[in-house]
């Protein structure tokens, strides 16, 4: 982490003020035998007006990090800055940060409009200003018609919108969203993903979004931090994370992936020559800052590889094996191939209309991929 630490310090130093800057934050719950390290020495910088996603499996520490930013918990060690100001130990009501809760946490004893005005009232804003903002927020989330409804009279999607409006109304510097779409059905979730992007664009507020859904993270975020076991493994744009994972966990968590064991033959000038376990040699780009020796893992995405009938071209292709399963997905088809070392390799091809079924289970097939489709990982 020291490397990316320096990088972030540089960014903040270069005049671009970060909205949130977390510095070596650790959070430990409990003590003695029951001690749980929820966050382990985490540092990150989130820029102004960024849609930043914390992605990871449940229990990875993403919600803990969010709660530290919101102020519901305080870090055991390290500090957290909001626009350069240390807020590590401020109570939640002294931070210009608002949260959209996973359960929405709307006040059941208040109407829609009252829920939205709550934060503004607590800030002691004048009545007329509050009324204006509430009207604006209701319009923003398209809930004008339901302003006097009680919360229990709303559907899940409507509650979601009210929760967003309520959190946006006080115009916080940073909006935290804790898996806000998890409770919605598929179609509504897709709709709200667009809605969230639109709201972020219109309000210009920094969004920090927590999810365990990699697809959601890829489609919505400017940058993603992949977390596991209390640590941040990688921070980058969706493209960087998807195409250049730095760790096996990241590659595995985001999308389908094939892992091939390989040996380094030679490495020089940012290029590396690998010998796959099949004996085939491939030359590919070396990730920045990596000096591999001995065993490594080559990562190949299913859609970057191509299946072909074995024997069509003798000696062609990088791999060969037996086709064991074909799964039709509508937009594409996945082919599961058993390699000589008994591992499964998945390849994926876009379906064409009137496409004849060219392969059958049990058939010997070959797989080819371009050298630059490979991402090299340290073992």
């Amino acid at each position, binding site marked *: 982490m020291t490397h990316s630490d320096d990088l972030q310090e540089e960014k903040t130093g270069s005049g671009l003020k970060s909205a949130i800057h977390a510095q070596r934050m650790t959070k430990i719950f409990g003590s003695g035998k029951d001690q749980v390290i929820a966050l382990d020495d985490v540092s990150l910088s989130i820029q102004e007006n960024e849609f930043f996603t914390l992605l990871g499996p449940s229990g990875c520490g993403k919600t803990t990090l969010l709660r530290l930013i919101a102020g519901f918990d305080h870090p055991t060690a390290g500090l957290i800055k909001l626009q350069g100001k240390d807020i590590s130990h401020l109570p939640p009501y002294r931070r210009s940060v608002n*949260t959209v*809760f996973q359960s929405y946490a709307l*006040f059941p004893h208040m109407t829609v409009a009252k829920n939205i005005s709550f934060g503004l009232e607590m800030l002691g804003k004048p009545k007329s200003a509050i009324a204006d903002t509430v009207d604006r927020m209701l319009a923003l989330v398209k809930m004008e018609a339901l302003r006097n409804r009680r919360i229990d009279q709303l559907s899940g999607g409507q509650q979601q919108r009210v929760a967003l409006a309520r959190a946006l109304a006080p115009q916080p510097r940073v909006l935290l969203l804790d898996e806000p779409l998890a409770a919605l059905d598929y179609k509504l979730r897709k709709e709200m993903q667009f809605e969230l992007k639109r709201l972020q664009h219109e309000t210009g507020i920094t969004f920090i979004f927590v999810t365990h859904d990699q697809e959601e993270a890829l489609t919505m975020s400017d940058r993603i931090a992949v977390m596991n076991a209390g640590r941040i493994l990688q921070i980058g744009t969706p493209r960087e994370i998807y195409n250049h994972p730095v760790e096996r966990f990241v590659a595995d968590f985001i999308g389908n992936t094939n892992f091939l064991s390989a040996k380094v033959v030679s490495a020089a000038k940012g290029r590396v020559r690998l010998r796959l376990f099949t004996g085939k040699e491939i030359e590919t780009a070396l990730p920045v800052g990596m000096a591999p020796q001995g065993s490594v893992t080559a990562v190949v995405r299913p859609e970057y590889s191509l299946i072909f009938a074995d024997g069509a071209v003798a000696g062609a292709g990088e791999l060969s094996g037996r086709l064991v399963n074909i799964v039709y997905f509508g937009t594409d088809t996945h082919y599961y191939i058993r390699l000589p070392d008994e591992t499964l390799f998945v390849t994926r091809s876009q379906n064409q209309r009137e496409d004849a079924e060219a392969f059958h289970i049990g058939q010997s097939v070959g797989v080819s991929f371009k050298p630059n489709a490979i991402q090299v990982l340290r073992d």
Partner: protein
Amino acid sequence: MTNKPTGIDRIENARKKRTRRNWLLSTPALIVLICAASGPLLIVLAYSLLSAGEYGGVTWSFSTDAWFNVVFHRDIFDETIGLADAHLLIFWRSVKLSFFTTLTTLAIGFPTAYFIATRNRKTRSMWLFLITVPFWTNLLIRTFAILEVIRNEGLINTALRALEIIHEPIQMLYTDFAIMVGMTYVFLPLMVLPLYASMERLDFNLIEAAYDLYATRYQVLRRVIVPLVKPGIIAGSILVFIPSLGAFVTPRVLGGGKKMMLGNLIELQFGAGRNWPLGAALSITLLGIVMIALVAYLRSTQRSSGGRR
């Protein structure tokens, strides 16, 4: 049109049958209710409209004397009619002390219930268990324990004198204060338990949401917690206020017969006073006060919550 029952007819018949069966099944409970609740009440009402027997009991002649005597007082010598000051004072003391007892139990019970509701599941049941421990001891014994603490040679006065904070004992026993302390102690669990029940269901995310929206601790309490646990506050207040109004043992022991409450006055009429009809009339009056207080309270809370639901 045929005679064959249609689907709607069949559903209608089944519904009627179910209603009839439900009535039949609830008959035993209804009989017990009528005999045990309404019956005695009717007897008390009837007694209040009869004349007093010379050595207690009633004679079977209609009279409104008892009701007259609840509020008015006829001088023995010149037959002039005045207000029954003593009774009115006791009514007033009963209502006042019950009201303040309710307030005190609420003030103590609210943080207690909140404390218990915010513990983890295992320790919660232990705290609840501790709350119910006083119920194991007889009410009279608990009341004498309070007497022991506040009497002139009791725990508090002895301690204060030993520390030379005071030189003369503070008269606490046989005052309104003593009665209130006693009732607060006795009725506290009745406030804590319903409060806890509504706080336990409280979604603590809502409290975090309020903090997140810039509410200070006091604002969170006033704007979120209190409105949401209101059913518990109402239930607890009713459970404390009503038995306080009719309290008998506590004012008897701690008020020493000088500071009477309604319960003591009623007992007096059935006992030494040998005026059963007056006792009966006073009992009905007590019932009336309770009803008025309840209706007024429910009305006011309904209005303040904007007539929801």
